[in-house]
């Protein structure tokens, strides 16, 4: 049975990288005695995948993780058991049974909302028809110019700083830090607020 778990990652835990978060959750599954499915073989590992790695230092109110379980478990009970073993800063928000043929969160993800906490900022540099950005591929040394304007679906000021809805998926991917770089402003914190699929629905 496929399960999608939503959780938040706030506070100091933002300094824990993606791979370590996976290891953290693997241990949590054991501590909470979740009947998670394992791969076969001599060193079985848990069937578990995340929607998208979160950069070191970034917080999130909406992280998604897919697992499989071998026996059904009540939603509220599962959320409670997991939250009982979480560390400060990580909270399980939802536990959802997915259809057997559903795609992984990783492949569904197309865009995300971010809140960037920062001082006053001028959004004018983005009010253009095209925003070409040149990126160099570190391995090949080739550089490529892409227009990132179509990847910014929405951006506006909020009391805390800037809110943006940008493309994040396999076809187009933009980093919130790259947008901030274009604006030429520093920032205190980036918080991922939500992740959406191609239909604009939350994962």
């Amino acid at each position, binding site marked *: 049975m496929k399960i999608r778990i939503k959780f938040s990652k706030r*506070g*100091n*835990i933002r*300094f*824990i*990288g993606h791979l*370590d978060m996976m*290891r*953290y959750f*693997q*241990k*949590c*599954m*054991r*501590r909470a005695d979740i009947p998670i499915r*394992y791969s076969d*073989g*001599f*060193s*079985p590992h848990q069937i578990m995948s995340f929607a998208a790695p979160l950069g*070191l*230092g970034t917080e999130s109110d909406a992280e998604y993780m897919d697992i499989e379980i071998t026996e059904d478990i009540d939603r509220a009970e599962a959320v409670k058991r997991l939250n009982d*073993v979480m*560390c*400060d*800063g990580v909270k399980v928000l939802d536990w959802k049974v997915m259809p057997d043929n559903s795609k992984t969160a990783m492949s569904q993800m197309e865009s995300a909302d971010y809140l960037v906490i920062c001082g006053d900022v001028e959004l004018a540099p983005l009010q253009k028809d095209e925003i070409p950005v040149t990126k160099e591929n570190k391995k090949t040394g080739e550089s490529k110019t892409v227009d990132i304007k179509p990847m910014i679906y929405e951006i506006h000021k909020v009391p805390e700083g800037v809110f943006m809805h940008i493309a994040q998926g396999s076809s187009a991917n933009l980093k919130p830090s790259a947008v901030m770089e274009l604006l030429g402003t520093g920032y*205190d914190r980036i918080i991922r607020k939500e992740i959406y699929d191609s239909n604009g629905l939350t994962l």
Partner: protein
Amino acid sequence: MDKTFLSEDILLKVDKPARYIGNEINMCIKDPAEVDIRIAFCFPDVYEIGMSNIGMQIIYGMFNAREDTYCERVFSPWFDLDAIMRERHIPLFTLETQTPVRELDMLAFTMGYEMCYTNILQVLDLSGIPMYASDRTDSDPIVFGGGTCAYNPEPIADFFDFLYIGEAETRYDMVLDLFRKHKGDRKTFLREVSHIEGIYVPSLYEPAYNEDGTLRAFTPKYEDVPARVKRQTVIDMDSVRFIDRPVVPFIKVTQDRVVLEIMRGCIRGCRFCQAGMIYRPQREHSAEYLKKYAVKMLEITGADEISLSSLSSSDYSGIKELLDFLIEYTSKKKVNISLPSLRIDAFSLDVMNKVQDVKKSSLTFAAEAGTQRLRDVINKGITEEDIMSGSLEAFKGGWNKVKMYFMLGLPTETDEDRNGIGELCERIAENYYTIPREERNGKVQIQASSSFFVPKPFTPFQWAGMKTAAEYTEMAHQVKDHIREQLNQKCIRYAWHDPEVSVLEGVFARGDRRLSELIVTAYRNGCMYDAWSDSFRADLWKKSFEECGISPDFYNRERETDELLPWDFIDIGVSREFLEREWNNARLGRVTPNCRQQCAGCGARSFEGGVCFEDKN
């Protein structure tokens, strides 16, 4: 807790910021205002190494079990952060409450290897605590230490206010009670604490030297200070409390698993092995205790692997019962078992077959020496017959990888012994090819490696001489050349440790108080993380020796049995007479039976427990 001592820009700049933020599962949280004693507890190496240390977890749990005490952790900052801290004058801080170490009442070190000594200075220095105990005042924390290195504490004695000799479980409550009473009065506390058995206060003792540099006398400065310090030992192992809340790191640490300490001490009596002497007698946990403990630890940590820890797990009398239980439990729970230090025989092969992928795993033989003669000298109770029959059985079961561990530079060692290493490996390879081709799992792969013999205090070899780095390197080359002459040389790989490190280890292992100056000089010259081959700086150490006018040869020479040794004031329970007798037996090539075969009268019986009283009415 959402507080970090380091700023965001620093944490995002350094490698693995998780090393410095605490907040792990099971981290102890207390209100510092509610306790009387605040201890910073340090393993002087990087976080991933320190957090893998079972002793650290035991003591952390033990101190925090006291209501009046809050013990927090601190580790050596890695090079990147170390540089930033120096540049910006940031003091070293604890993980739990992110408080400068200097603000706490005590700073404790646990020391497992000599190569951590410069890191002790790094921690003191970054904390803003004077390195030398004699420079500290009542406003400085009390600095104390324990662990394996405390059995010859002299090279680091000047840095410590007191040292604890022995196993932590027995006396620390008394020490902390006393500290609470005399908090703020360093002088009174240190004088009083020296009366507790097992506690050594270096400033209360005075060494005197002969003209040739050897020790003439080592005496307490006052009459009430005991002349000998007696090592502390737990007798009833099951009385030791569980580590009930082991801290579970976020990042991958060296031992990312539950470590089950099944016993302390060893019955074997290998003559080079310090652990085999200083932890005598062998004392076991009951299988019942261990089963309960294993389950509880796995449940509370969520670890996916458990490993047994002891000096020689096959000698644990409940090994079958324990492993039967663990194999069943872990296969249900999808937990791996790792089994270091099991003797290769039918039983262990059967166990390994159940818990490992035979194709990938390897057999390990700690033969230590290439010939039976030399194995008799070092009292290593493994015979060629054991190796041959064990490996043959394993080869038939599908194994094809063998790891062989040797030591070079052992007392009485000759060319023949060194050549014996290659020849033994060759016979193992030939052994493999005696099984029919269709039963073989490809080619045999033998990985031999040598470390260099380092004489350690409280072993029968504490008087033995050590070779120079150049001689060691030559020996290793001789072994390698001889391996290349073997028929199956293509199946044998050979590697050796850095001899410079071993030579330095030898100096500290048998050093005296005059070495503190050397350690400070080396640290000032930039030495740190000497246990890491990438950061070990042989050139800087050489320079430091010269600057201090100290010669490694003085410390690594062979010693006479009538010489007063810097660690002789410590009473480990194993008598000097026994060690001397064993030193003689070694040179005569005489084997001493293990404790279960026949008691050799080492003196440890005085602890009134353990193997000495097994099955004896």
